[in-house]
């Protein structure tokens, strides 16, 4: 009886050990896209994997320490202007991807993203100095400043590089909160959700980044809950999408806002300066200490510079799309932005109160273009941010 009991225990331990053996084979989807100045190659695994890579002439060999199932996704890679062919082989239980480029290339950077596990290479044309072997320390999440942390320490912690891996898209309004209404009763909440979903698809498929949405259906979500979701999910960008309304029917064009003390629109700055000079001391009110105190207490204060840059990139793209005179990047105390612990912008796509723009906003093809413009702005910001630290 005693021997039987001992055997049962041994058998159980062996079973547990057996389940821990690496007997699975890995599936890796490979995709790439071209962007201004570089091509990004993403290897997304259904589980994490160990890897090594070598740059050999016009070839990039990525060795995986596991057997990888054959994948059809390699065909899509060849659509890139830089990539000539891609092949996959397996030998002695280990697989290798061989990416051949049309001309000489250099790996500008490579890093790993989690949830899902992705190995990312940014490859540039030309044989410039490769930084590919300088393995970056990728932070899984940004340094979110604690409330009690002294401001100086917050600034120091933010000098570290933050790799953008999660973006929060916030389609404005929803549920009983209709937002702006057009003359045909088209509502802001429906347009923002449509644009938000399109933008999500673009970011996920082209940039391979994780996207969280503050709402995915017609639901009323409080402003504080929206930004709390972004903070809790440790998003590195917050993009709130809105449609504008004005008492002036002629008001038109896109506007991108961020929270700041200073305006970045030169026209507005020049005008403000002129008015302030004319008004004497009254114009100095903006320097008031308690206004600075309010701004200092905002989580967003730490990210104003990045938010301004993100707003600028998006606004430029929307100006081209809507063929508008630059209405400029603007500042205002938006409740949804003030508590965001990440670069955050609010985009007013166009005016529902303007009959011409209302008509455009009811056209799904136009909304595709809007989403694409916002996507381009975000992608440019990410590229700018990466180069800033390289």
């Amino acid at each position, binding site marked *: 009886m005693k021997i039987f009991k001992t055997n049962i225990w041994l058998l159980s331990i062996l079973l547990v050990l057996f389940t821990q053996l690496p007997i699975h084979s890995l599936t890796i989807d490979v995709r790439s896209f071209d962007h201004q100045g570089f091509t990004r190659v993403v290897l997304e695994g259904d589980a994490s994997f160990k890897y090594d890579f070598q740059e050999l002439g016009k070839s990039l060999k990525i060795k995986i320490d596991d057997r990888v199932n054959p994948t059809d996704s390699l065909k899509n890679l060849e659509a890139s202007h830089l990539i000539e062919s891609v092949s996959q082989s397996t030998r002695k239980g280990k697989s290798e991807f061989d990416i051949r480029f049309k001309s000489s290339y250099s790996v500008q950077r490579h890093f790993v993203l989690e949830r899902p596990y992705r190995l990312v290479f940014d490859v540039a044309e030309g044989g410039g100095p490769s930084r590919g072997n300088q393995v970056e320390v990728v932070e899984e999440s940004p340094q979110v400043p604690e409330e009690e942390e002294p401001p100086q320490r917050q600034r120091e912690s933010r000098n570290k590089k933050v790799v953008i891996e999660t973006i929060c898209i916030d389609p*404005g*309004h929803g549920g009983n*909160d*209709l*937002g*702006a*209404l057009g003359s045909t009763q088209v509502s*802001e909440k429906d347009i923002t959700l449509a644009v938000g979903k399109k933008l999500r698809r673009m970011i996920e498929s082209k940039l391979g980044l994780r996207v969280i949405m503050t709402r995915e259906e017609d639901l009323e979500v409080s*402003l504080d809950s929206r930004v709390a979701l972004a903070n809790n999910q440790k998003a590195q960008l917050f993009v709130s999408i*809105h*449609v*504008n*309304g*004005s*008492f*002036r*029917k*002629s*008001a038109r064009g896109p*506007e991108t*806002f961020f929270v700041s003390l200073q*305006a970045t629109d030169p026209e*507005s*700055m020049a*005008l*403000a300066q002129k*008015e*302030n000079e*004319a*008004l004497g*001391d*009254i*114009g100095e*009110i*903006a320097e*008031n200490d*308690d*206004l600075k105190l*309010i701004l200092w207490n905002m989580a967003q204060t730490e990210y104003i510079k990045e938010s301004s840059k993100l707003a600028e990139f998006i606004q430029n793209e929307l100006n081209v799309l809507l063929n508008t005179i630059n209405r400029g990047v603007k500042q*205002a*105390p*938006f*409740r*949804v932005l*003030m508590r965001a612990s990440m670069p955050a912008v*609010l985009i*007013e796509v166009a*005016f*529902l*109160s303007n009959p011409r723009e209302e008509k455009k906003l009811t056209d799904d093809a136009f909304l595709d273009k809007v989403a694409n413009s916002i996507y381009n702005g975000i992608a440019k910001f990410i590229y700018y941010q990466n180069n800033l630290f390289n």
Partner: protein
Amino acid sequence: MNKKIIYSLVGLALIFFITSLLIFLKSNSELPDGDETLRPPAQTGEEILQPDPITLKLFFYTRGSRYMKPVTHELVPPTIRAELYRLLIDLLLAGRENYITPVPKGVGLRTLYFVEKSGLLVLDFSEELVHTFPAGTSSELEFIYFMVNNLCYNFKEIKKVKFLVAGNSMKILTGHINMEHPFYPDFRYILDK
């Protein structure tokens, strides 16, 4: 022996209670600036003014521009300063022909308070403001700076303006701008010519 200890403890408790009460009363009499709207204003703007005619410069939106443009208005001021502020707001709410007034029709001013020490003017509007306000970031900003710029431009003692609706503070108007804090003038919205 026991009685002595009890008396000592009661005595200590009494001293502690009195000290706490004094600290509590003192702290209540020194509210921070952020809470100044919660206490009776130190200065309600009830001093008597000289009845000389004055010229106000009112700024209204026009159809073709995103800037407010000036319109002059002469009047004999009322004898109470707070009434002068109210008069200006009534002129703004009434609007001008060929100009745009960024306030929904039917909205009225219930009351106003002025705190001279900090230059804060508190405007308490009727409920119609939130019920009939057309949603949109621009419309919110147009309303806010229509009020704040006009008041601060014409009366230098007013440094900032806080909005209430039906006597209550509000977080937002139609889902965009944070309305909890007072607003300072932003003269980028006006063209003084």
